[in-house]
């Protein structure tokens, strides 16, 4: 209970593990609903525990959700998810498209007290406003043309479980207001209804691939809703920021899709070192989902028992590093190559990315770029020459004179010879 309700103190209370908060003054029904939801949560937790004990007795219990990755940034996200899972705190997941936001949400659900209850996902960007509203809140018979009978919405379907709101910032403001009421009071009113139709006990996980704070500033996302949902924020790193996980994920997807798509007993193909290097060097704008699709494609077409070559992967859009490219994310592990070859490859890759980042950062101004890098302008030109980079005459941004050469020439570049 709080007589002085502020957003920060309330969010802090939830963060510390409070089930909910009750701003004073409150009504008897508000207290009853809140306690009712808490009691329901306790009952669901007990039921879940009993079910899990039963499962463990039958040795059938295993982690259903696989989250693969060893990169520290990714491990941090998983550790946070694991820590927050058994609480009822709302989670707000940010991350690029395809980086695994829904997987994290499912992971949280499966490790929560609610795992025996439904996990319901809604993509707020996929449905037009009217449809999203009736999908979420349900509707009364006759609420609109085609509403021939009463229908409960997804909020009611998720009762006792978890509701995943993907692309939350795409939700219209009126629906956001309606949702906020459900989060605060747990009371659902179906479209076209005059009364409260249900009291629901739902854990909310929201996600977006854009910056939610910017959406709040721009006025497209309600601030009170955002703070209510952002009790624990989790950031999923893009795949290109954790290149050390690419070989691991690629091997995993390859064996999964090979078993799914090919004849039983067909000998597994193997990713060649060159293919793994190509995978590690790719930009992966579509993140893990793009990698998954690329590997599934290979698993369907490649001959059994052969080595997968880089050209089998059909990676496109290679080479153009955005101005924001992070030069630190170059070292990929699990490659079986000699120390010198690995060092040469990584250094050459680093130099290319660093130079691209540097010159773009300086807006194409080579004097400024040299100052930032702490080297002579001539040294800078020589380095760029060596890697076949030049400034675009029109924009001043770094472009490549030719498509990125195949791996062997990267090591050659380090030997001090300029690429033709």
């Amino acid at each position, binding site marked *: 209970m709080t007589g002085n309700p502020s957003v920060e103190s309330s969010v802090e209370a939830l963060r510390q593990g409070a089930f909910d908060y*009750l701003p*004073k003054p409150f009504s*008897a029904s508000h207290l*009853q609903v809140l*306690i009712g939801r808490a*009691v329901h949560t306790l009952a669901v937790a007990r039921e879940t525990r009993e079910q899990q004990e039963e499962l463990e007795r039958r040795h059938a219990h295993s982690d259903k959700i696989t989250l693969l990755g060893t990169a520290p940034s990714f491990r941090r996200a998983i550790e946070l998810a694991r820590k927050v899972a058994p609480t009822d705190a709302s989670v707000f997941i940010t991350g690029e498209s395809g980086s695994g936001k829904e997987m994290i949400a499912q992971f949280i659900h499966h490790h929560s007290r609610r795992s025996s209850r439904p996990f319901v996902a809604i993509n707020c960007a996929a449905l037009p406003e009217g449809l999203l509203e009736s999908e979420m809140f349900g509707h009364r018979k006759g609420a609109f043309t085609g509403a021939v009978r009463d229908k409960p919405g997804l909020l009611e379907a998720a009762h006792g479980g978890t509701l995943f709101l993907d692309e939350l910032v795409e939700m219209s403001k009126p629906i956001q207001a309606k949702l906020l009421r459900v989060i605060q009071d747990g009371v659902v009113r179906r479209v076209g209804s005059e009364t*409260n139709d249900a009291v629901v006990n739902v854990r909310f996980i929201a996600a977006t691939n854009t910056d939610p704070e910017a959406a709040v500033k721009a006025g497209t996302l309600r601030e009170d809703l955002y703070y209510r949902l952002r009790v624990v924020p989790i950031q999923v790193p893009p795949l290109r920021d954790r290149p050390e996980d690419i070989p691991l994920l690629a091997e995993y997807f390859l064996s999964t899709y090979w078993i799914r798509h090919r004849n039983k007993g067909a000998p597994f193909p193997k990713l060649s070192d060159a293919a793994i290097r190509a995978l590690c060097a790719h930009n992966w704008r579509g993140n893990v989902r793009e990698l998954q699709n690329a590997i599934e494609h290979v698993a369907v077409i490649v001959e059994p028992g052969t080595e997968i070559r880089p050209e089998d992967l059909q990676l496109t859009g290679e080479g153009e590093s955005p101005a924001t490219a992070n030069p630190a994310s170059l070292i990929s592990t699990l490659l079986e190559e000699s120390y010198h070859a690995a060092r040469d490859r990584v250094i050459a890759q680093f130099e290319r990315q660093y130079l691209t980042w540097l010159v773009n950062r300086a807006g194409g101004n080579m004097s400024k770029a040299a100052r930032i890098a702490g080297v002579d302008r001539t040294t800078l030109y020589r380095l760029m020459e060596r890697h076949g980079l030049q400034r675009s005459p029109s924009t001043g941004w770094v472009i490549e004179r030719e498509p990125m050469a195949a791996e062997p020439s990267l090591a050659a570049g380090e030997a001090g010879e300029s690429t033709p």
Partner: protein
Amino acid sequence: MSMPLAQNGVSRPGARDEAKDVASLLAIGADAKARIRILVVDDEHTLRESCATVLRHEGYDVTVCSRGQEAHDLLKRRGFDIVISDL
């Protein structure tokens, strides 16, 4: 700072109906409620007692106390399923 709970029901006509409506929607069994132990902690007598009254009326097992130290001792002595406390 806060409004006594009991006055809320009186000052807002229809609040009692709403409460009944909500209680029926929740549908938690009476025997289940009797097994739920709730501790209400607030230094304000009226608020504390009105909360307790509402919750006891619902069928919960309610204990009240006025101070944090007292709550701490109570929690050590016996388990509670839910604690309602001032921030």
